[in-house]
């Protein structure tokens, strides 16, 4: 047994989860997208051959779950080919999609290629809000695609990102998932990274909204037991202990950005750390040996209050990206933790935003416009930064 202070390479477990962000192109413009705000910067996408090589290398190390994500992965015309190769390699293949760009013929081709699971996102349970948030007329098409996915006997996950604009419709949203026969429902509270961070003032729900939504979610969890598994995670800004982010840095998750950058999670690109690119390096080398992946492995990197905290082995000090965004130093404790000296600052910010929400509900003020996720806004945000 080695101590935390003398971590050796043999302590590094292989990645189990490979998230392949095939492209940042997307027909939708959701203002809470977890992609980096700098999406316009990513130009040189990996080729089919690159992806096949990367999938082979990661599989050899032991990766089992593979998510095809984006952007919108359906934009890639080689998706069928990649699915077929992934399935052939023995991955459990997940397609994480908006459903825009899909039709029955393509669902059938995916089935023939061996795709295991399709996750479709909805923005809301009514057409108007769904189409407004996504920036496209996609609602009816999404419903149609969900029906076809079930027809082809896929396990279906419906993912709905929950925030202040749709949280009060949670009952309608859950009714919709029942109607569409979802096997799993992810009520994914907006976490404030990427685009949702710049729109946090308009997206963060109030405590009262959360309490109501939690009660409704609980009701449906009980009601649908055995038929549909409903997962609801509240936004961590309301917690007092941080999430064990990614189950630890470089522990099981490997994200690959469209340009081949290998990351310990899909938000880590914003950190002032150099990450390897899989155009130049094997997955094994990147995962085991690169300084980027070893940066926050183990516990040596920690500062107080994490360093001496007995809970550090449980939550690893929370999220490095959140620590960086909210304190300026990624080594700090995630300010969600009430042991963090920055926790009060975060609480004050939540209070400020909740006050804005109250005013908005009372129609006393014009709310700030949402900044939609698209290449034009990405360029603008980068210029302003």
């Amino acid at each position, binding site marked *: 047994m080695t101590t935390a202070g003398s971590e050796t390479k043999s302590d590094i477990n*292989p990645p189990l989860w490979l998230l392949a962000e095939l492209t940042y192109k997307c027909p939708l413009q959701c203002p809470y997208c977890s992609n980096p705000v700098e999406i316009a910067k990513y130009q040189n996408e990996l080729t089919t051959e690159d992806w096949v090589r990367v999938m082979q290398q990661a599989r050899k*190390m032991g990766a*089992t*779950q593979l998510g095809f994500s984006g952007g919108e992965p359906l934009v890639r015309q080689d998706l069928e080919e990649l699915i077929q190769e992934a399935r052939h390699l023995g991955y*459990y293949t997940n397609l994480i999609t908006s459903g825009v760009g899909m039709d029955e013929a393509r669902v059938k081709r995916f089935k023939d290629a061996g795709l295991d699971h399709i996750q479709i996102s909805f923005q809301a349970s009514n057409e108007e809000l769904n189409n407004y948030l996504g920036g496209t007329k996609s609602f009816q098409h999404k419903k149609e695609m969900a029906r076809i996915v079930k027809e082809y006997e896929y*396990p279906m996950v419906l993912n709905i990102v929950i925030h202040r604009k749709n949280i009060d419709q949670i009952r309608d949203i859950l009714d919709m998932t029942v109607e569409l026969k979802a096997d*799993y429902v992810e009520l994914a509270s907006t976490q404030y990274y990427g685009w949702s961070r710049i729109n946090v003032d308009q997206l963060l729900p109030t405590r009262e909204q959360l309490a109501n939504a939690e009660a409704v979610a609980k009701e449906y969890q009980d009601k649908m037991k055995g038929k549909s598994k409903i997962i609801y995670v509240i936004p961590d800004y309301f917690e007092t202990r941080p999430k064990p982010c990614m189950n630890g840095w470089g522990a099981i998750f490997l994200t690959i950005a469209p340009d081949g950058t290998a990351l310990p999670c899909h938000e880590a690109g914003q950190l002032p750390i150099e990450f390897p690119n899989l155009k130049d390096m094997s997955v094994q080398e990147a995962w085991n040996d690169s300084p980027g992946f070893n940066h926050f492995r183990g516990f040596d990197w920690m500062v107080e209050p994490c360093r001496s905290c007995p809970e550090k082995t449980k939550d690893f000090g929370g999220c490095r990206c959140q620590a960086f965004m909210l304190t300026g130093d990624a080594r700090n404790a995630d300010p969600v933790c009430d042991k963090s000296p920055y926790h009060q600052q975060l609480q004050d910010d939540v209070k400020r935003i909740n006050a804005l929400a109250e005013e908005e509900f009372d129609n006393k003020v014009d709310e700030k416009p949402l900044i939609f996720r698209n290449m034009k806004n990405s360029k603008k945000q980068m210029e302003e930064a």
Partner: protein
Amino acid sequence: MTINKTEIPEVAPTFRVQWEEAQGCYVVLYPEGMVKLNQSSGEIMSRVDGQTSIEQIIKDLEAAFSESNLEDDVLKFLEVAYDNGWIRNKK
């Protein structure tokens, strides 16, 4: 739950079972998740093929491991597998 031993179980279409070399065990795979099976559970699950009855699975296991009286253990695991929705009876 009472299990009828003449039934022929199959892996439900929303799950997949496979041997994982890197883990050294059978795993049950589902959307964005995985359960590692211990050795005996893996031996049982790997025989659920939509063609073999529960009765026959028990006999096969008893022959393969030169043991008798495996019925209780097998039924106990299958109950968990049915309950989790991993397997269903072939119609």
